[in-house]
């Protein structure tokens, strides 16, 4: 099977909608098929990666831990848009996984070179 470049674009905060969790599910499926997977975090999607999430009191599974397990599935390309992170007062130290921080222009280049772009 030919390997395609899949980009998962995450633009939603972690708990207000089901998008963040659904994105992770599909990422793991794509990884199972040995595809070239990238995750990008833009706008409120950056909040998905913030350290110290504790969702016990709202009765929703804390899926943020899953991001730390992604390298076990050979998903190692995580990118955060610098502008989105800065607009929310966050730095790389606030994030629970190692990411590569890209400018909007660098992110645009990366997006344009994908075979498939999936929005969440």
């Amino acid at each position, binding site marked *: 099977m030919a390997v395609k470049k899949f980009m998962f674009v995450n633009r939603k905060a972690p708990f207000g909608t089901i998008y963040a969790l659904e994105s992770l599910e599909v990422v793991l499926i794509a990884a199972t098929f040995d595809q070239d997977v990238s995750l990008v975090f*833009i706008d409120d999607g950056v909040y998905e990666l913030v350290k110290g999430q504790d969702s016990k009191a709202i009765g929703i599974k804390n899926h943020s831990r899953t991001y730390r397990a992604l390298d076990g599935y050979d998903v190692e390309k995580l990118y955060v848009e610098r*502008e989105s992170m800065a607009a929310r007062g966050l730095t790389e130290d606030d994030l629970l996984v190692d990411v590569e921080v890209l400018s909007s222009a660098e992110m645009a280049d990366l*997006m344009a070179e994908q075979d*498939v*772009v999936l929005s969440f």
Partner: protein
Amino acid sequence: MLHIVNKSHAQTSSLQSCLRLAKAGSALLLIEDAVYAATQAGAAGSGIADAMTRLKVYALQPDVEARGMAGKLVDGVTPVDYAGFVDLVAEHPNNQSWL
């Protein structure tokens, strides 16, 4: 690359983020409530007026007509029908639907 936006620029930030991340020379198709961004009244505030200098902008005409916006698109925006939508998807190597 083809970018597709379907939400009003006044309701969500999808269009704003799309315009920030679309490379010059890309195509942008506005469908559903996103067509308001391409109207004469909306184009300046939505950023479409500026974006037209670097992106090719299309609007899905059935959605424009449904909203009573026919004849109100800003000059430079190309109306397309459903077949034109399919052509745009087929002509570009990849696309992104902004949610």
